[in-house]
């Protein structure tokens, strides 16, 4: 990516030259494919080929079919449950690391929290299948110790999918909340308590509102990948509870209907964008305040 010599020296030109290799790569392999997907979604499916005749039929099919509606509803429900569970369970952990851990130990705690996240995703998901099954690790351990007599059965269920995903995306929720908590000026908390607030009311009226930007980031960063998860519905749900990613695969490859698959993918992106925007709008007060 050589830039004509006369441009050297101006900051804008240097910056553009510097970013161009990465930006061109992203335009070719990300922007162009996403644009193609959008284009395909308004094309007609022909036999073995995609017929470039404009149609909105793919979208009507994707939104009006009861099967698709139930899959979209399930995907939304699972990802909302997972997001709520992950963020609520993660907040106290982020709070503990930010407020109760000595400065020089914080890095170590964050490292400990992120390690499980970096180990093989497929194996981690499969482990929950092994653990939650009727004859699985948890049941056999609980029966062996004598805590329960009849095994619970969570194999191939939506509940097991929620547990697995909440485990898989835990660090995604902890880190943004932690970053927001770290930015809070500690003297504000002292001021709150000097003015007669208890520790709990200080938390509710000072710490929580100031950390909401982190909570919003955590919600989005968990919600978006979870709604597009493919492996967990296959392995832990046993293929009985498909989510959006699974139907996209079915339409794109098994049914070879690329326009319909593209329309579902585009609808999924639209759904995610809408939910995210509504959520950001609901929390705009905190986002503005902490900027």
């Amino acid at each position: 990516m050589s830039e004509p010599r006369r441009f050297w020296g101006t900051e804008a030109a240097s910056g553009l030259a510097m970013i161009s290799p990465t930006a061109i790569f992203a335009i070719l392999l990300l922007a162009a494919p996403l644009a193609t997907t959008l284009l395909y979604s308004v094309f007609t499916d022909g036999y073995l080929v995609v017929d470039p005749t404009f149609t909105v039929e793919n979208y009507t099919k994707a939104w009006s079919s009861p099967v698709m509606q139930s899959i979209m509803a399930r995907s939304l429900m699972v990802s909302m449950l997972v997001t709520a569970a992950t963020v609520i369970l993660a907040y106290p952990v982020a709070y503990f690391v930010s407020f109760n851990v000595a400065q020089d130990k914080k890095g170590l705690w964050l490292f400990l929290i992120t390690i499980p996240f970096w180990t093989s995703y497929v194996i981690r998901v499969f482990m929950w299948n092994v653990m939650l099954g009727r004859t699985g690790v948890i049941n056999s351990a609980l029966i062996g110790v004598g805590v329960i007599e009849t095994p619970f059965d969570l194999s191939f269920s939506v509940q097991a999918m929620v547990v697995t995903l909440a485990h898989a995306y835990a660090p995604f929720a902890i880190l943004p909340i932690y970053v927001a908590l770290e930015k809070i000026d500690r003297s504000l908390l002292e001021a709150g308590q000097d003015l007669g607030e208890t520790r709990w009311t200080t938390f509710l009226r000072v710490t929580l509102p100031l950390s909401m930007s982190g909570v919003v980031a955590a919600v989005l960063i968990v919600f978006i990948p979870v709604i597009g998860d493919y492996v967990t519905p296959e392995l832990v749900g046993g293929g009985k509870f498909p989510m959006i990613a699974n139907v996209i695969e079915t339409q794109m490859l098994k049914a070879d209907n690329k326009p319909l698959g593209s329309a579902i993918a585009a609808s999924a992106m639209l759904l995610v964008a809408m939910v995210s925007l509504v959520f950001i709008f609901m929390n705009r007060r905190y986002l503005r305040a902490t900027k």
Partner: protein
Amino acid sequence: MKIPALRIYTIAYLVFLYTPIVILPIFAFNNATVIAFPLRGFTTEWFVAVWNDAELRGALINSLIVAASTSVLATTFGVFAARASTRYSFPGKAPMMGLIMLPMVLPEMILAMALLVVLLSLGIKLSLFTVILGHVLVCTPFSVAILSSAFQSLDKSLEEAAYDLGEGPVSTFRLVILPLVLPGIISSLLITFTISLDEFIISNFLKSGEELLSTYIYSKLRFPKYVPNIMALGTILVVISITLLTLAEYFRRRGLAKTGAKDSGGFV
């Protein structure tokens, strides 16, 4: 102000996070094909089976080729983007950086399908190369995130001093900037290598016949007979991942210490 309840809760949470990877080695050494308590006895049989699995060896070699290529390419792209975004202001910076970072929040299935559609319509045959392209796309944002903090903590006056002493932009980069951000680069190489090694969705849809580690594991999960081998293989992979991450964390901290920045915590 110490609240013991919070500490207990956090430790319980860590136990939840670590349960799967602690269970893994327990059953990798257990002499039974069914993954359940009580344990039957110690064996290294499954590790021997993994070692002798020729198909697995092929998948491992493919994965190593992909991971090595991906980490070098993604880190190279990461250096350009991180340097551009921390050092210069230019028109279109925010949308360009947004596009580059987008794969971090886009569901991988959508990414994989969009790429697949374009590759097929251009008549490009699927191969390890197409897997590498997809992996680079996914790994670059992580590299940019790591390297941005490395470049951010650079003191601009060091660079100006080099210019004043008569160095050009290239030699300034090589002699002054590169040594200071090198730990960040090593950290980025290790992290992107780890992500690529574990990545499943893009590997699964952009590969042709040849298996990669993650797709090979996935294809074997349906067979109960093979599950103990997966436990053994998983144990090995966990050990490798933790080793790579510990190295990455070591280099990241060394980099921060070198440039005198305050440790702001984790990778992401």
